[in-house]
C-alpha cells in the first residue's frame, strides 16, 4: 500500500483503526519526499525532526485514548510565507533567507492544535508575486504532470506537493489566484476562502486586502475537513470576520438540482478552445443533474487585471518596506543607515518584486495617487457590484480557473503583465473578497484543466456541494495516473 496515495480521510481512518501509526505515516511521507523531491523541488525547507516529534506525540495521545481531530497525525505542508514558530519562513526571497519566526501563524497554530504534522515549507513565487514559482528566489517547482519536464511546466509547491504525494494536504496563499491556478495546473483541489474567513495573522502580507490562506487537497472531503480546522474568527486579525463556522462536511451533498449557476461570458475571452470545451462539458453535466446554467454579464471584468495590478503593487510596496536590514533577514553592511537600506533591498529582492515595489511606489506618489490608485479602487467597487448583481440571480458562478493549461501559462517571467493576465479568471475574486474553488476537470494535451466555482461571501458550502456533486458524478476530478507513472501516483 502506498500511503501517499491515500486521502486525508482514508489515512485518518487507518490511524483510527490503529492499522498504522502517525510515526509510520510520517516516515512513509519522508521516504516519498526523499524519492521525488530532488526532481520536484516542492520544498524550501523540510522539517523532518519536528515532524517526527509531532507524530510521536499524536501517537501517544491516540494510545491514551484522547479524542483527536481527523487531521491528527496527517502529514501536511504550507506555503513558505506562512509563519511557523522555530521553522524558517523565507517567502522564497533572499531577503528572508534566514528568518525564523518566533511565533506561529494562526492557521499553523490551529493545525498544530489539531495534531497535523508539518513536513515543511513549500516553494512559492517570491512574496507570492506570480502564479507558478517562476519568481522563486531559489528554484522553480516542477509540475508533476509534466513528467519529462518536456514542456518546462512549473507549478506552486503546495499544489505539486499534494499532486505528487509529498504531503496529504497543504495550505497555500492566494493574492491573485495562486492556490487555484497552481491547483488547477497540478490536478488537485484548491480553495480561496472568503476574505476574513481564515485568519491572516502570520501570513507575511504581500497585498493585505487581497491575500488569503486556503487549503489544497486531493478531494472534496479532505477540503471540508481542513476548512473545519482553519476557518473561524481570530482576535489577532482585525480583518477576521466574526461569523459562525458550519461543519463543512455537512455540505458534502451529491445534489445540485435547482441550483442556479451563472456563466460569466466575459471570462471566456482568451480561453483556449479545448479548455472552453471542458467547461462546456461540465456545464452539460451540471444541467443533466438538474442545475440551471445561464449566462451572466460581468461588464467590468476587463478592468480587473490592471486594477488588481495597481492595488496589489501599491500595498506590496508598503508591506515590503519593513525588509530594511535593521531587525531581521538579510543585512548588507554599509557605511551609513540609508546606504545599508539601499544595498540590502537591492540585493535582497528579485526582479519581479522590485518591479512591483517601483510600480506600487509610483501609483501612490503625489500626482499619481488619484490617476492610478484611486481609480483602481473605483474599479474594484465596480467589480464587486458586478458580482453583487450576479449573485442576486445566481447561487454560484462557473468559469475556467486558467485560460490555458499549465504548459502555456507563466512561462514568460520577463513579461509580468502577461503573467498577471493569466490570472484574469481568478483575480477578480480576490478584488471582491469572495470564496472560490478550483476543481480538476479532465485533461487537455496531457495537462489537467481546472474549473473555478465562485460563491457569495461566506458561502463556501455552495462550492463544497457543487464540487462534491461533480466529484461523485464524473470521473474527471481525479486526473488519471497513467500519465505520470514516473511518480507512481495511483489515486481514485
Amino acid at each position, binding site marked *: 500500500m502506498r500511503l501517499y496515495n491515500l486521502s486525508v480521510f482514508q489515512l485518518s481512518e487507518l490511524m483510527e483503526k490503529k492499522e498504522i501509526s502517525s510515526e509510520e505515516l510520517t516516515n512513509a511521507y519522508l521516504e516519498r519526499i526523499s524519492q521525488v523531491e530532488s526532481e520536484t523541488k516542492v520544498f524550501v525547507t523540510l522539517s523532518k525532526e519536528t515532524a517526527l516529534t509531532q507524530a510521536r506525540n499524536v501517537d501517544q495521545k491516540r494510545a491514551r485514548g484522547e479524542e483527536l481531530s481527523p487531521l491528527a497525525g496527517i502529514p501536511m505542508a504550507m506555503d513558505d*510565507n506562512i509563519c511557523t514558530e522555530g521553522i524558517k519562513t523565507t517567502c522564497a526571497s533572499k531577503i528572508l533567507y534566514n528568518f525564523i519566526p518566533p511565533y506561529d501563524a494562526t492557521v499553523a497554530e490551529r493545525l498544530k492544535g489539531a495534531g497535523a504534522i508539518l513536513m515543511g515549507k513549500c516553494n512559492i513565487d517570491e512574496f507570492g508575486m506570480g502564479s507558478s514559482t517562476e519568481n522563486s528566489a531559489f528554484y522553480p517547482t516542477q509540475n508533476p504532470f509534466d513528467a519529462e519536464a518536456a514542456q518546462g511546466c512549473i507549478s506552486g509547491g503546495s499544489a505539486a506537493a499534494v499532486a505528487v504525494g509529498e504531503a496529504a494536504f497543504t495550505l497555500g496563499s492566494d493574492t491573485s489566484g495562486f492556490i487555484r491556478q497552481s491547483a488547477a495546473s497540478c490536478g488537485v483541489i484548491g480553495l480561496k476562502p472568503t476574505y476574513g474567513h481564515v485568519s491572516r495573522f502570520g501570513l507575511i*502580507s504581500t497585498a493585505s486586502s487581497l491575500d488569503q490562506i486556503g487549503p489544497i487537497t486531493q478531494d472534496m472531503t479532505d477540503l471540508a475537513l481542513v476548512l473545519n480546522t482553519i476557518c473561524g474568527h481570530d482576535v489577532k486579525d*482585525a480583518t477576521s470576520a466574526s461569523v459562525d463556522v458550519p461543519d463543512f462536511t455537512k455540505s458534502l451533498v451529491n445534489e445540485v438540482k435547482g441550483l442556479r449557476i451563472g456563466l460569466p461570458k466575459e471570462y471566456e475571452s482568451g480561453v483556449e478552445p479545448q479548455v472552453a470545451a471542458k467547461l462546456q462539458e461540465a456545464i452539460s453535466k451540471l444541467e443533466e443533474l438538474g442545475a440551471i446554467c445561464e449566462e451572466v454579464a460581468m461588464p467590468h471584468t476587463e478592468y480587473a487585471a490592471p486594477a488588481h495590478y495597481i492595488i496589489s503593487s501599491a500595498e506590496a510596496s508598503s508591506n515590503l518596506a519593513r525588509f530594511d536590514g535593521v531587525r531581521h533577514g538579510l543585512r548588507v553592511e554599509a557605511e551609513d*543607515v540609508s546606504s545599508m537600506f539601499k544595498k540590502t533591498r537591492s540585493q535582497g529582492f528579485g526582479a519581479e518584486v522590485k518591479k512591483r515595489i517601483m510600480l506600487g511606489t509610483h501609483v501612490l506618489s503625489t500626482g499619481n495617487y488619484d490617476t492610478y490608485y484611486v481609480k483602481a479602487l473605483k474599479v474594484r467597487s465596480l467589480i464587486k457590484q458586478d458580482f453583487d448583481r450576479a449573485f442576486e440571480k445566481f447561487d454560484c458562478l462557473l468559469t475556467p480557473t486558467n485560460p490555458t493549461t499549465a504548459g502555456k501559462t507563466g512561462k514568460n517571467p520577463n513579461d509580468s503583465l502577461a503573467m498577471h493576465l493569466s490570472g484574469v479568471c481568478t483575480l477578480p475574486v480576490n478584488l471582491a473578497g469572495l470564496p472560490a474553488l478550483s476543481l480538476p476537470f479532465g485533461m487537455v494535451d496531457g495537462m489537467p484543466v481546472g474549473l473555478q466555482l465562485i460563491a457569495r461571501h461566506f458561502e463556501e458550502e455552495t462550492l463544497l456541494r457543487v464540487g462534491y456533486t461533480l466529484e461523485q458524478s464524473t470521473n474527471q476530478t481525479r486526473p488519471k495516473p497513467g500519465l505520470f507513472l514516473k511518480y507512481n501516483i495511483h489515486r481514485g
Partner: protein
Amino acid sequence: MNRYEAVIGLEVHVELKTDTKLFCGCSTEFGKEPNTQVCPVCLGLPGAVGVLNKKVVELATKAGLALNCAIGTYTWFDRKNYYYPDLPKGFQISQVFRPIAYQGHLDIDVNGATKRVNITRAHIEEDPGKLVHSGGSITTSRYSCVDYNRSGMPLIEIVSEPEMHSGEEAKAYLEKLKAILECIGVSDVKMEQGSLRCDANVSVRPVGTTTLGTKTEIKNMNSFRSVQYAIEYEVERQIDVLEDGGRVIQETRGWDENRGITVSMRNKENPDYRCFIEPELTPIELTEEWIEEVKASIPELPDARRKRLVEEHGLPEYDAGVITSSLALAEFFDATLKEFPDAKSISNWIMGELLRLLNARNMELSEAKITPSSLAALLKLIEKGSISNKMAKEVVEIMFDEGKEPDQIIKEKGMSQISDEGQLAQIIAEVIAKNPKSVADYQAGKKQAIGFLVGQIMKATKGRANPGLVNTMLRDKLAEEA
C-alpha cells in the same frame, strides 16, 4: 515699532494613558529596560498584524470632545510610508485622511485678555521606537541603538491652526492644553517623560499682510518655557534674515537649550509619504449614543472650574487661574474647601507655602505628604488663634515633609499659642518692670516704643504669645500706669 508679525502653529503629540499599546498587548509602562516591552506586532515582524485597542478610541474621543472638536463617526487608519530605523514596519499607522476629532478650539489668557485658538484636528497614531545614540547625539555617534519599547504606543497628535503670534501665547496654549488633558485623565502629559511633545511651526510676515511667510519647524523643546524661548528666538532670527535682505528657508530646526538658539537640522523637501488606507485594519465606526456617553464622562474642565472658583467662592481671577492650571492643585483646593469654608485663605496657603515647598523640593503634589484635611485642620487652628501665622508656616513644612497632623506637631514642638490672659498679664508685668526706660518713652509720647516691649514679651514666650492679645493688654496696662 515692530514691523513684523509672528505666526505660530503647534503640533502636539500626546501619549494616551492606556495599559497596553495601540495595536498589541504590550505594556506601556515608562522607563523599562530597552526592548523588553515588545512583541511581533510592535516589532513589525513579518506576518504580524495588529488589532485596535478600543480604549485608545475612547480616550481620543474624550480628548477631542474636551477640546471642543467634532467627532467623526466613520474614520479609519492610513499608512504614512517612510524609512527610518526606529520605524519597524517602514510605515507609521496614522489617521491622515479622516481624523477622529476635528474643528475644535481652546481659549487662552495672555496679558489679561482671552483669545481663542482653533484646533484643526486631533488624530490617533502610533509612536515609533526611539534611537539611542552611542555618542549622545546623532552627529557625534559612531552607532545608534534602537529601543522599540515606545514603538506602537498610542498617541494623539493635536494640530492647532497657525493663529498664535508670540512665544507667550504658545506657552499659554500648551499650559491650557495640558490642564485639560490632565483633567480628563487621558494622558500623563509629562514633557520630561515624553508623554507630551511639541513641535512649533514658525513664520513671520510684515504686519498688515495676510499671506503666510516661509515657515520653519522647531523641534527638541523639552519644557513649555523652552517652547516659548525657542519661538521667541526663532521669530527674531527670521526677522533678522528678512531685514538683511535674505529669505527664510523651509527647514527643520532644533532648539539648543544650552546655547539658547535654534540650529538647522535638515532641509525639509516635503517628503512624499504615499499615504493610503491601512488595509489590515477595519474602519472606526462610532455611534452618536456612544459619543454622548463619552461626553457625559468628562469631568468639570479647568475653565469651568475656574469660573466656579471666581463666581461661587469669590477667588480673584489670578488665584483661580493658578489653582486650575493643575488638576492636582484644583482637586486639593476643592477637597480642603469641603472642610474649611474660607476659599481665599486656602488659596493663599496653596499659592504661597504649598507652591513654594513644591518648587523648593522639586516635587509633584502627589509626592508631598500633606493632605487637604490636614491643611484644613491647620487653617482652623489659625482661625481659633491657637497658633500664629508665622508658626503655622513652620508647621505646614513639617506636614508637607512628614505628613503629621498639625495638632500633633504643635504639641510635640510646644508651639501652641499663649492666649491665657492671666499668664500673659504676669509676663507683661515682668517686662514693664524690667524696661522702665521704654515705658517712660512711651508715656512721653514715643508711641513706637511699644514695639520694643512687644518684642520682649514675644522673646520671653519664645514667640508663642498671642500677638493680638499682647498688644491690647499691653496698651491697657500702660494706660493704667500713666
